[in-house]
């Protein structure tokens, strides 16, 4: 059984904040989905190696040189919500004044 506390904990890890309504809904839905995933415990996997990728390529190397397709700094900054002097601007890392810790 997945509890509301579990859901809140996982949301925290994933940097999501959920409304009370979302917590209620996700708790029951995730509980059902994870119960479905629990069917995997019936499969005998003793000695089976996990598969985490399916490419046949092994150790793909390239020369350690800068590749530039003509994309400029201005191009790269064109989608940034807030910039200053050609840099990405973000709010201060630590709260100014108010705390909610």
């Amino acid at each position, binding site marked *: 059984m997945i509890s509301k506390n579990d859901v809140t904990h*996982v949301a925290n890890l994933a940097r999501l904040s959920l409304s009370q309504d979302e917590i209620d809904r996700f708790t029951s839905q995730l509980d059902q989905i994870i119960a479905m*995933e629990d069917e995997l415990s019936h*499969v005998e996997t003793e000695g089976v190696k996990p598969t985490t990728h399916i490419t046949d390529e092994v150790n793909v190397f390239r020369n350690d040189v800068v590749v530039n397709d003509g994309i400029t700094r201005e191009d790269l900054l064109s989608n940034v919500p807030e910039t200053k002097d050609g840099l990405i601007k973000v709010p201060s890392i630590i709260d100014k004044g108010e705390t909610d810790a």
Partner: protein
Amino acid sequence: MSLLDKDLETLHQELVAGDIKATDLVEQSLDTIEQRDPQLNAFITVNAQQALADAVALDEKGIKAEDKLAGIPIAYKDNIVTKNILTTAGSKILNNFEPVYDATVVEKLSQAGMINLGKTNMDEFAMGSSTESSYFKPTHNPWDLDRVPGGSSGGSAAAVAAGEVFAALGSDTGGSIRQPSAYNGIFGIKPTYGRVSRWGLIAFGSSFDQIGVMTKRVKDSAYILTAMSGKDAKDSTSSKQEVPDFTKFVGQDIKGLRVAVPDEFFGDGIDEEVKTQVEKGLKVLEDLGAVIDHVQLPYTKYAVPAYYVLASSEASSNLQRFDGIRYGYRAEDVKNLEDVYIKSRSEGFGSEVKRRIMLGTFALSAGFYDAYFNKAAKVRTLIKQDYERVLADHDLIVGPTSPDTAFKIGAIVSDPLKLYYKDILTISSNMAGVPSASVPAGFDSKGLPVGMQMVAKRFDEGTIFKAAAAFEAATKYYEVKPSFKGGAR
């Protein structure tokens, strides 16, 4: 008859001879979009001005006999990045994102002269089987406007079926090209993992994702897939395997083709009418000389749980990059950096995406990793071995693409688990990395298209093209056009 109903070779000959111009094709495409898309919602962005300008430039330059794809209108699923054209992945979190480069597939097809008509609607971040989880709008099925087009490449499928474009690209992580192709009565192929570069595809499950082609006709797909396949220095998982000219397989006979039919693909939960149509399809293959053999893929029933653990885990990792800092939606009223991340993500992602991120984060979290992620990765090995075993002495695995035909919009939107099981027949191909296509196989009693799935050995798309083309020539289901019924408002 619309110009876009002709096949690629006919259009190409007419273009080279000067009987038609690229501009005619683009105008036909734009006219149909204007007429149909208010009902269908297949497009998020229509690239009208640029498409017309590209067509004019191409007509001035002239189309040569070797430029097979030049002047042909195509659309791209909105998770394939296009330079200076809005690319949203169906999400609010990218509702203002204009990429500064083209995906490799877009670059290759543009170089071949294909004209980009726009970006198609999709389930948010390709997570869904109905295109209802798009942030923007649901897409409607041209065969019955009250029904879903399938998903997640539902916009691409509906656009092709409705004749809005000649072809469209989609992406397939667990069935997202094949299931909507089945629901819309078109041919859709997910190539072998590694066949096509994923550079510029907004990642969902990186060990599953593959870009593929959706068209009405099999040979047209072969032309396009040949042009967009191959090793790409920008995607280290793309394969060095030589790319054959897939069109060469079209027209070959299938006498002696060894076809495996898995019992599990005709079990409980598969609609009776779908079974009947696919059984008829198997009979057609048999009449064409194929040898049918019944086999077992016993791990099929674990494909859905294993997939939802693994693909969600990869998604939760891939989607960490959406944090409101470098591109996309940034929340207002934030106190500090942490707040930017949390608020931008919480306001920018929709319910289904949050659910998958949560599932994945859970499966990867301390204390649960072995029971979920690692266990599912081992089951993936068993599923892959199932396929390898059957394909070792068969050329093709054939069964239904989807357990049912298109369902009503809104019918199961509140039941994610039920929706997840729509992928039960398609997921395993992504688990094993094998090429897999959906071929039109007729209609149910409601007039809704049924798809027949063909799965081949890794890098053996040729056999799929061979069998699908022979089947198409014998059945000609592409001649039946969608009715655009329903959709009363």
